[in-house]
């Protein structure tokens, strides 16, 4: 599957699961799905303002926008923009993209969960995953707190718990129909 197709599929999947498809949600969905789902063409992520972020994903969104396959609709309330993918291209990405039905189902399930989260909660979730994948599960809370002092200890603990549930759900979808 090409990287463009994967990004388009992430936008489409988020759009189907939630009212809003802002950039942060797209990055976080792909971050977790690529981390857990062994998806083709994974992107490189580094820690940014709201957690793991990929310049490559941004470049792909822009290159799809440049040719009209993705459009950005500014949010009337002033909260950035929502991205919409061309229906035909989304279909092609799904049909010819090379994701297994299990991977697609896992992606949809994750989008369902992440689509309704706030940016702040997504930041907590994905930063916990980022830290854990770098240093293992020891003293994750402390490291996240150092990186994100504005998050409360309760938020970090809750994020870690939810992260474990999300990972279980994702992995069970991956193996369920195999």
């Amino acid at each position: 599957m090409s990287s463009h197709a994967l990004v388009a599929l992430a936008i489409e999947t988020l759009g189907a699961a939630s009212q809003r498809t802002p950039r942060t949600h797209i990055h976080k969905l792909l971050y977790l799905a690529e981390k857990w789902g062994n998806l083709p063409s994974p992107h490189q992520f580094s820690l940014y303002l709201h957690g793991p972020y990929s310049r490559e994903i941004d470049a792909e969104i822009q290159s799809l926008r440049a040719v009209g396959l993705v459009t950005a609709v500014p949010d009337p309330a002033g909260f950035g923009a929502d991205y919409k993918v061309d229906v035909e291209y989304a279909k092609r990405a799904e049909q010819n993209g090379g994701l297994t039905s299990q991977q697609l189902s896992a992606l949809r399930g994750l989008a369902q969960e992440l689509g309704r989260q706030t940016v702040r909660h997504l930041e907590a979730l994905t930063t916990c995953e980022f830290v854990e994948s770098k240093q293992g599960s020891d003293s994750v809370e402390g490291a996240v707190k150092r990186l994100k002092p504005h998050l409360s200890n309760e938020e970090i603990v809750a994020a870690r718990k939810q992260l474990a549930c999300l990972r279980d759900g994702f992995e069970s979808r991956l193996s369920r129909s195999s």
Partner: protein
Amino acid sequence: MELAGRGFDSLIRNSPDEARRVFGDEDGQRRWRQTARVSGLLHDVGHAPFSHAGDDLFVGEVRSHEDMSVRLIRSGEIATILQSEGTFRMDPDEIARIAAGDFELGAPQSEAELVVKELIAGDLGVDRMDYLRRDSHMCGVAYGIFDLPRLVSTLMLTKREDGSPRLAIESGGMHAGEGLITARYFMFSQVYFHAVRDVYDAHLLRFLRGHLEEGRYPSDETYLEWDDIRVFGLMRGDREDVDAAAILNRKHFRRVEELTIGQLRQDPDLPQKLTARFNETFGNRVIVRDSNKSAVSMQADQIMIVDRKLEREDDILNLSGTLQALTPVRFVRVFSSVEDKEGVREMVREFLQEHTPHGGNRDE
């Protein structure tokens, strides 16, 4: 550096109460002004020779010129100067977080740090204000010009919903803000992605990939020994290399074909497919470049416009139809040597016929 100071002064002048809350008393404000100026000075200290052309040559431990900036700011001579010189002593980690946006060092530790970071490198940052006008002047083009004094003098502070501060423009400066973004758009479409400039980047990148150890810049202090002159020296040592010869003799590859929007809509992955196809047949005698950039980042609350008399504020994206209509710039081009031009063009056209049977034109 100079613009960072001027921008900072506008924040203090236009939002004195909020500035006092964020930066503290007069001494605090002087300290943060110095921090802003030094961060502006060091923002691009990690750039490789020939600037962004070498960005792809950072691999592994140091993945970008920003990572290199962080490394240089936090160690050696610069760190020592920051800790020992100037009216106020500075923390190299703080300067690295502000100047080079390193979030792995931790999120901004204070509201003041967040604001200064935005002032340096945000969508409205002084980095952009500086490089657009400087590049425009140096290239002798009229693109890249916007009302800099107006824009800088209307910078102010406002508050997010959660009470934290953010940068904004007074309503009178809105069109100067639009001017900055459209200037950036035109600089990318007319200068930075100009076909000839673009192919020289490609020649340089290919040459360095083949000549640097492991095809990348070193991540230790020996990186500092790399400058434009050393790269030219390396090229002169291997004049037979196709890319060194193209640069030294100014015989760059010529543009053979440029893909249309219609073709890319049918298959956005054409550049990768073309590259694979031509690598097989022509090896290093063909270059496929896919360059794209968005002039406006479409992030939440990037640029707020504040009308103080009407007590109203809104995102510039909601107020400006011009910016809403600004799609990213994307150019996909195939270049080849003068000798191969005809053969390559014929092959590209056959390839496109096969992969985009519905054709397509740029305005589709």
